[in-house]
C-alpha cells in the first residue's frame, strides 16, 4: 500500500444547483402532472360522500379511532386489511413495471420529493429570478435586498409547507370540522404536531435538501438498478452523434465536430446538478428537462432533435452502426413487462372480485380449546365457541343461530334463552355459544365431529356460516 502526499478530502460541502427555466414537451408534461398530483392531494379530503346517518360523509377518510377506512362507496374494516396489502402489492408491481419499461419516471415526474422541489424551485425563480440572477444573488453580500428576497421566499415556502402538512391531517378526520378547530385553536395537539413536523420536513427537503434527498437518503435509486435492463428507456446522450463536442465560433473550423456545441444548456436546467453527457448515473432522476433544453438548441442551430433523448441501451450498437433503432413499443412490450402487467392485473382483478363478493354480515368462530370439552352432570359433552358476529348494516340487526350436522347436536347461547341476538349497527359483537352432545351420542364419544354454524340476519335473510368441529370425550 502506498500513500500519496496529498490528504484527500473525504467530505465536501454541497454545490448549490440553480436550474434554469426551460420550455418543451416534457416540461409541459411535468406541469400537468404537478397540477394533477398536488390537486388530488389538496382537494381529495374535501370531497363529500353521503353514507346515511351516523356515518362520516367524507369520501376519503382513514378513521383510526373507529378502525374504518372509507373510500367513496367502499368501506374497509380491520379484518379486511388484505385489501391494503393487495394495494401495496399492486403499487410494488406497478413500480417494477414502470421502472423496467420507462426507467425512473416515478422519480422524474411523480415522486413527492420531485413535485414539491419543482414547486419550491418555481417559487424561488418567481421571487429571485432565473438561474443567472439567482447565482448573482447567491454570490452577493447579505444586504437589505438579499434579505428581503430570501425572507419572502422562505415565507412562501413555509406557507406551502404548512398547507402540505395541513392537508395530510384532513385525511384522518372530518376535514371541515378539523379546519374550524385548527383555526380556533381547539384541535388535538397531535394534529398541530403532525402539521408542524410535516411542514418542517417539507420546508427543509423541498427548499434546502432537494437533490441530496435523492442521492444520499432515498433507497429507491439503488433498488431501481436491479429492475432496469438494456431495453429500459432512459434519458441518455447520443454521444456517437454529439462527440467530439465543440463551440461554434465565427470562423472556427467546425469540420469533424459532432452536433454538441457544448452550450451547457442540459447542465444548466438539470435540477440534480449533473451532466447527462457523462452517461447514465445514479443522480439522474430522468426528469427529461435536459431533452427539452437540448431540443431547443438543436432547433436553433438547425440540427435534428434528439441529441439527448429517451433511448434504450440495446439500440446504441444499432445507431452507432447507422441502422434504425427498434420501434419504441418493442422496448416497452417485452416478456418482462408483460409478466409484470399480468401479475399486476391479476392482483387488481382479485381485489375487485373480493370487493364485490364481500358479505354484509359475517361470522367467525373460535372454538375454545382450554378445555376442549366439558362433561356435564348428566354425562353429556359440551363444547364452547367464541363467535364474532359482524353487522355492516347501518341499523341494529337480529341474528339467529342454527347448526347443521350429520349427528344430533344441541345449540345454546350464553346469557340468552332463545337463539337470537341483536347485533348493533355497523359493529361486531362477541357471543359465546355452547354446543352439547347427549351422553353416549355419536358426537360425544367421537374425537372430532365436523358441523356447520349458521347465522341468519332475520331482517334481510342474509346468511353466513362457518365450518368448525366438535370435540368429544374419547376414553
Amino acid at each position, binding site marked *: *500500500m*502506498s*500513500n*500519496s502526499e*496529498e490528504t*484527500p*478530502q*473525504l*467530505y*465536501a*460541502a*454541497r*454545490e*448549490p444547483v*440553480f436550474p434554469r427555466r426551460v420550455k418543451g414537451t416534457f416540461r409541459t408534461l411535468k406541469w400537468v402532472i404537478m397540477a394533477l398530483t398536488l390537486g388530488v392531494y389538496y382537494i381529495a379530503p374535501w370531497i363529500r360522500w353521503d353514507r346515511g346517518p351516523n356515518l362520516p360523509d367524507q369520501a376519503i377518510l382513514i378513521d383510526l379511532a373507529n378502525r374504518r377506512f372509507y373510500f367513496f362507496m367502499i368501506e374497509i374494516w380491520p379484518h379486511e386489511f388484505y385489501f391494503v396489502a393487495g394495494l401495496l402489492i399492486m403499487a410494488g408491481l406497478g413500480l417494477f413495471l414502470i421502472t423496467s419499461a420507462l426507467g425512473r419516471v416515478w422519480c422524474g415526474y411523480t415522486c413527492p420529493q420531485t413535485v414539491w422541489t419543482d414547486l419550491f424551485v418555481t417559487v424561488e425563480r418567481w421571487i429571485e429570478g432565473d438561474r*443567472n440572477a439567482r*447565482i*448573482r444573488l*447567491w*454570490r452577493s453580500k447579505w444586504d437589505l435586498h438579499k434579505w428581503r428576497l430570501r425572507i419572502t421566499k422562505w415565507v412562501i415556502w413555509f406557507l406551502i409547507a404548512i398547507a402540505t402538512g395541513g392537508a395530510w391531517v384532513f385525511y384522518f378526520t372530518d376535514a371541515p370540522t378539523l379546519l374550524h378547530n385548527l383555526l380556533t385553536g381547539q384541535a388535538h395537539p397531535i394534529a398541530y404536531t403532525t402539521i408542524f413536523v410535516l411542514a418542517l420536513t417539507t420546508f427543509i427537503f423541498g427548499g434546502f435538501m432537494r437533490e*441530496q434527498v435523492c442521492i*444520499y437518503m432515498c433507497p429507491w435509486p439503488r433498488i431501481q438498478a436491479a429492475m432496469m435492463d438494456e431495453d429500459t428507456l432512459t434519458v441518455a446522450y447520443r454521444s456517437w452523434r454529439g462527440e467530439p463536442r465543440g463551440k461554434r465560433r465565427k470562423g472556427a473550423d467546425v469540420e469533424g465536430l459532432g452536433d454538441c456545441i457544448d452550450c451547457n444548456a442540459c447542465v*444548466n436546467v438539470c435540477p440534480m446538478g449533473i451532466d447527462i453527457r457523462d452517461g447514465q448515473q445514479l443522480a439522474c432522476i430522468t426528469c427529461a428537462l435536459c431533452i427539452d433544453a437540448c431540443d431547443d438548441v438543436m432547433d436553433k442551430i438547425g440540427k435534428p432533435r434528439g441529441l439527448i433523448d429517451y433511448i434504450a441501451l440495446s439500440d446504441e450498437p444499432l445507431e452507432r452502426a447507422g441502422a434504425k433503432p427498434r420501434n419504441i413499443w418493442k422496448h416497452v412490450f417485452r416478456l418482462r413487462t408483460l409478466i409484470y402487467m399480468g401479475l399486476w392485473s391479476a392482483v387488481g382483478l382479485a381485489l375487485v372480485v373480493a370487493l364485490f363478493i364481500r358479505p354484509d354480515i359475517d361470522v367467525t368462530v373460535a372454538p*375454545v380449546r*382450554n*378445555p376442549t370439552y*366439558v*362433561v*356435564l*352432570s*348428566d*354425562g353429556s359433552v*359440551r363444547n*364452547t365457541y367464541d363467535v364474532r358476529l359482524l353487522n355492516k348494516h347501518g341499523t341494529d340487526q337480529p341474528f339467529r343461530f342454527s347448526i347443521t350436522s350429520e349427528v344430533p347436536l344441541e345449540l345454546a347461547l*350464553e*346469557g340468552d334463552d332463545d337463539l337470537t341476538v341483536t347485533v348493533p349497527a355497523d359493529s361486531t359483537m362477541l357471543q*359465546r355459544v*355452547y354446543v352439547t352432545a347427549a*351422553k353416549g351420542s355419536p358426537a360425544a364419544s367421537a374425537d372430532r365431529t365436523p358441523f356447520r354454524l349458521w347465522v341468519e340476519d332475520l331482517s334481510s335473510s342474509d346468511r353466513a356460516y362457518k365450518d368448525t368441529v366438535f370435540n368429544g370425550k374419547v376414553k
Partner: protein
Amino acid sequence: MTKAPKKQKKEVKTTGHSWDGIEELNNPLPRWWLWTFYGCIVFALVYMAAYPAIPLLKEATPGFLGWSTRQDVAKDIKKFDDANKALEEKLVATDLTQVSEDAELYHYATSAGAAVFRTWCIQCHGSGGQGAKGFPNLLDDDWLWGGDVETIYTTVTHGIRSSADDDTRTGEMPAWADVLEPDETKSVIEYVLKLSGQDADQQLAEAGAIVFEDNCAACHGDDGTGDRDLGAPNLTDAIWLYGGDRATITETVTKGRHGVMPNWNARLNDADIRSVTLYVHQLGGGE
C-alpha cells in the same frame, strides 16, 4: 454570462490508497452528513447520561432524569384505576343479581373478573376454569355449594375450610377407615358405583345400601344426590371431583377429603370479588 459556481473537476479523484494497483476512488460525502453523524454521537452521550444506560452489578445507572419503566407502569395503573373508579363504586353498590341488566357495568365486571381470575384463581382452577383433580371444574353445571351469583360470592369471599375466616364454609368428608369395617367399606363403594350408573357388584351393593343409609345419607342424602348446605357432592351424576373409578372412590372413602379454598376477602377488595364472581358465573355453569 455570470459564471456558475466552480464545478468539481470532472475526473473522480482517488483517496491515494492503492493495493496491488487497485485504487480506491473518492466520492466525498456531503459535509452535513458528517455533522449529522457527530450530532448523533453527542445525542447518544446526552441520552446515556439522561436515561438508565450502563448496566452495573445491581442495577443500571439511573440517569439524571430519574426515569424508570416501573414508574411509567405505576402511572399507567393509577390512570386506569382512576378511570375505573366510578364503575368500581357502582359495582359495589349494585345488587349482584342486577349487574347483568347494566350492559356497561356487566362488561366491566366480567372483564375485570377475567383479570382477577387469571391472577389469583388459575393456579388451582386452570386458566380455562376447567379445574383439576380435587379442584372443581367451574365450567360444568355441577356445584358443591351452589352456582348462583350470591352463593359463588359467599364462597369466594370466605373460602372453603379456610382456617383464617370464621365464616368459611365447613363440612368435611371424614376418613371412614376409622369407623367402617373393611367389608362395609367394600360394599358401600359398590353401592356408590351403582348410584352413578357404573358397573358394580350387585350383591355387595345391596349390602352397601344399608351402610350408606346408616353412615353417608346424613350428608349425601338418602338418594345420594348430595347436600349443598354441607358441600356434599351429588354421587349420582357424571362429575367427580377426585375421580369416579373404584380405586379413587376407595381412597376417598377410607382416607376422607378436605380440600381447601382460601378466603379471598383477605387479599381482594369487594369489587374484585364481585367481578370474579360474575366472571365465573358466566363461564357456562352459572345458575
